[in-house]
């Protein structure tokens, strides 16, 4: 981790912590410090982190709702159209629109569409897939971020970002190791 190396474009600076508490604390401090464009990385979800970073994305829920409604309309509409308009047939003496019989399919389609919305919506909002990301340039990050270490990265495009100041700030948080993240 030689830090003197001249860096072309800088994505930000990254600090490594080795337990959850430190990370959460660091995140709180960073937020308090006025940093906004920073991101915490952990091998499993830490709910306190969401709080201290004030993360709350309602769009996923909204997408799911929309998905569900679309599914419901599709299901009901399809069946009604097929049975009453496209080719009305006398089935077992039932009327063309014997709607109680249409409930199961409607339900299934509701669920299906909602589920699609949830998953693809989530990945979409997370900007995944994104196989390449600057943070992976940090070797230790690539090794440990998904296993047993915790990271806080403050991005260069944060208005308050100042290379040296931010570095020292991060170190002050008791980071085990602070390193530049190249673009």
């Amino acid at each position: 981790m030689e830090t003197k190396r001249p860096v072309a474009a800088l994505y930000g600076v990254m600090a490594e912590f080795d337990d959850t508490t430190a990370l959460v604390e660091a995140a709180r401090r960073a937020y308090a410090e006025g940093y906004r464009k920073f991101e915490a990385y952990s091998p499993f979800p830490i709910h306190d982190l969401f709080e201290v970073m004030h993360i709350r994305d309602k769009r996923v829920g909204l997408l799911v709702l929309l998905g569900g409604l679309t599914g419901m309309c599709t299901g009901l509409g399809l069946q009604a159209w097929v049975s009453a308009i496209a080719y009305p047939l006398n089935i077992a003496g039932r009327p063309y629109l014997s709607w109680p019989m249409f409930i199961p399919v409607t339900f299934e389609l509701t669920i299906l569409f909602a589920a699609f919305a949830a998953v693809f919506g989530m990945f979409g909002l997370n900007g995944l897939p994104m196989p390449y990301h600057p943070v992976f340039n940090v070797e230790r990050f690539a090794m440990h971020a998904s296993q047993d270490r915790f990271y806080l990265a403050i991005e260069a495009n944060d208005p308050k970002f100042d290379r040296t100041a931010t570095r020292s700030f991060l170190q002050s948080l008791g980071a085990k190791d602070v390193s530049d993240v190249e673009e």
Partner: protein
Amino acid sequence: MNSTSIKSRLAGSHGRVYWRSLGELADTPEFREYLHREFPEQASEWNDPKGRRQFLKLMSASLALAGVGACTKQPTEEIVPYVRQPEDLVPGRPLFFASAIPFSGVAHPVLVESHMGHPTKIEGNPEHQASLGATDTFTQAAILGLYDPDRAGAITNRGEIKPWGLFLSAMLSAGSQQKGRQGGGLRFLSGPITSPSMAEVMASVLAAFPQAKWHQYDPMSSDGARAAALAEGAVGDPIYHFDKADVVVTLDADFLTCGPGSVRYQKDFATQRRITEERKEMSRLYAIESTPTLTGAKADHRLAMKASEIEGFGRQLAGAVGAPAPAGPSARATDPASVIGKWVAAISKDLQAHRGRSLVIAGDYQPASVHTLARSINQALGNVGSTVTYGPSVEAGPTDHAASLADLVRAMDAGQVEVLVMLGGLNPVYSAPVDLKFADKLKKVNLSVYHGLYVDETAFLCHWNVPDAHPLESWGDARSFDGTVTITQPLIAPLYDGHSAVEVLTTFTSQPDRRGNAILKDHWTRAFAGGPWTIRSADGQPFKNFDAFWRRALHDGFIRGTAIADGGPATPLSVMPAVPAAGAPAPTTQQAATPPVTPPPATTTPPQSAAAGAQGGLELIFRPDPTVWDGRFSNNGWLQELPKPLTKVTWDATAWVNPQLARERGLEDGDVIELRYRGNTARMPIFRVPGHPQQSVTVFFGYGRQKAGNVGNAPKNAEAFNAFLLRTSDAPWFGNGLEIAKTGERYPLAATQEHHVMEGRAPVRVATLEEYRKDPKIIEEQGETPPRTLTMYPEYKYEGYKWGMAIDIGSCTGCSACTIACVAENNIPIVGKEEVAMGREMHWIRVDHYFAGTEDDNTVEAYHQPVPCMQCENAPCELVCPVAATTHSSEGLNDMVYNRCVGTRYCSNNCPYKVRRFNFLLYQDWDTQSLYPMRNPDVSVRSRGVMEKCTYCVQRINQARIDAKREDRAIRDGEVLTACQQVCPSDAIVFGNLNDPNSQVSKLKLQERNYGVLETLNTRPRTTYLAVLRNPNPELEPASRSTTEH
């Protein structure tokens, strides 16, 4: 599987266990494993018993099938127009020709439907008194017989194919040799001949060869009746008129399903018993019989006794009604006189109360003495002339067949027979009495000629084989049971180079090699000019010329005025003068031609004396098989697969025993027993039949064939199931001294119905006439019908036509002609025994059969219920089909769209009537070319994996609708006849438009005995039933009456 374990289970279960199926009782691993050895799936898949559908073909077929539904291209097809189109033919529309299908020489009048020159369906001839539009099963199935790929294909001499010319010269030389000896070594063997033209040819042959002899043999014909008739001189043959009979007593007679008159008899009998708005009375039937028959099943009172005891009963009855009876044994001493006495008293009282309106019938399989008794009783009751008329025989030169054959065999044995010509495919090597040893004696004949449809057991031992021409391929004439001369005309050129019997016979006349057409026309030209016949046109006037007469005869299919009733003569066995001359034919020729009259042979003497009853034992009763008769239909898959009445067993013969006897001997259905009888032995799987005489065993002819063809040949383990192995000439129909032994072997039987009790569900509803008169609601009360308002949905309206069907099970005799008619009309495949055993038969209309009564008293009631698709308005099948392959038409038909069906079988599961049928394998025979032209072009040929079912013959409905629309009118009532309705001899099935209040079906459905099966499910079946009404004699009201459980 040992019987003790079955017995223990039997003991455990109670009630009518003996009607439960073998399988139900014997469901043990061993039995299963055994079954699998019997029907290894592999074997049945790789080499099909019918030997046609081989694996590879099937594979290709089913792969080809993959295309049928999927988006593959239509294969390119050709159109091949005529070069010169026949005048009367409209391509795409069938033509109908009147013709006749002879059965044991007697004509069954038919109309044959022909599509572009292929006969495809046989209907009864509605104009003809012997049919009135109906036919029996055999006649229906004749269409398959025509196209049977196993038919004899060529004239052969010692196995080498020879042209007709060579055969002709061979016969001519044989003839010229015989000429010198007056034909001393020349013998002819044929069945009974009723054909005037053939009789004349025969007469001329016999005239040309005075020493030659003509022998008649039909293994199933009734020598007893014939002997009795001969004894009466010229006028001994009875014709019954059930439309006049109020009380009918049968002495072991199965007049409803056996005998040439049965079709017409069923009609009259049914009419006489049908309760309608107009008719409130019905006739009463007492059946005194040995083997249970369908006639017995219709009886209001049925008394079972040994066949040998019938005569005694008849004698007592005669005594009771004061009819002169020849001396002989009286009713059995063993039996408590009370029962017999009670019955005799009651019946005779009833008979005397209906003098002139009653009728006593002797069974064909009873000796002459019983026929004589019946006749004298009828005379005493003044029935002769009203319910029965005795007239001349329709057979030319009737004679005792057993004696005639014995005579021939004696001659063969003595080496007197140099040339033997066997006409008309009666297969004596298989069917002659064993004691004659026909096969051995045949070897002593220098020149044997066999003429028949198949290369059968006899053909294999003869020098010359000449293929017979199927009735649908040949010209000819024959008389129906009522004497009407009926014309047979060809609808198609002989498929297998066949020649009719008369054509073969002419080779011995002065003008050999005449074609059937010429012979026939020549005969009737002369007969028209002057003969014993009184030929009249429909309006009773004589025809102006022969052509008018002949055109009419061919159009009608029969010659009016030739019926016995219209004064038609006995079929003359004589040569008519070539030159038209007034007056009767020369008696001299008559004299010359009369066949050797044989003295009344042993058979006509009461068998129990001849049958050496000394050694006691059981009584053995012989019967023709209900579906393959004496084996002449063995190779007809339709008939083989037709469930046999009362047992519903297919493809096999069974020996019938009374359940009680079975218990005594520790026998279960399917146990193979060995029958020892007068030094002969045969084997047969048994079947327990309630109502069977306790001390008798009935065996059926027609099985154990070895040279019948791919369909009819018996499997190795069934070759001994041949009743002919036991038949001796002195006891053709029954006799004492039978010993049976359990072999320990089991033989799997394939039955289409295993369970014959109603389990309190009353699919068949029954009441006595009295009960019904008192309270017509009694029928309705036997089931519950939910109110039509019981639904959350609005009701579907049916404007226009609203098709429905009413089936009168009071009239249904269970003859199953409807099943065969349906098979023929709707291209229904044969599936084979293994598939039937697995429960995969394809019949669209089945005839359910239920017993009621208890084992011990023999007053068993049997009911028959034809079950087609109910065409439910709330069809459970439609609701569950995922692809809408079965939906409701605007006329209320439950349509089945084969090409849409994916084969989930859900519809069948959900059908409470289980009338749907599924092509589990590729059942339809796609490979046998000769079967293509047989199929009905108006009905799709279903393929593998497709559900199918009764459509109410929608092809006929559509044709009728289109015709009606083209004429801007509505379809008339009765214009559309479903195949089952059209064939039904007792008019039990009526189909029509329910929206027309005047249609016959609407009227029937108004009757209070009209009910729907399982209406409690709110399926709203369009097919409903008219309940059975029985008319018991209060004095004999059987205890078991109430056991039609409800």
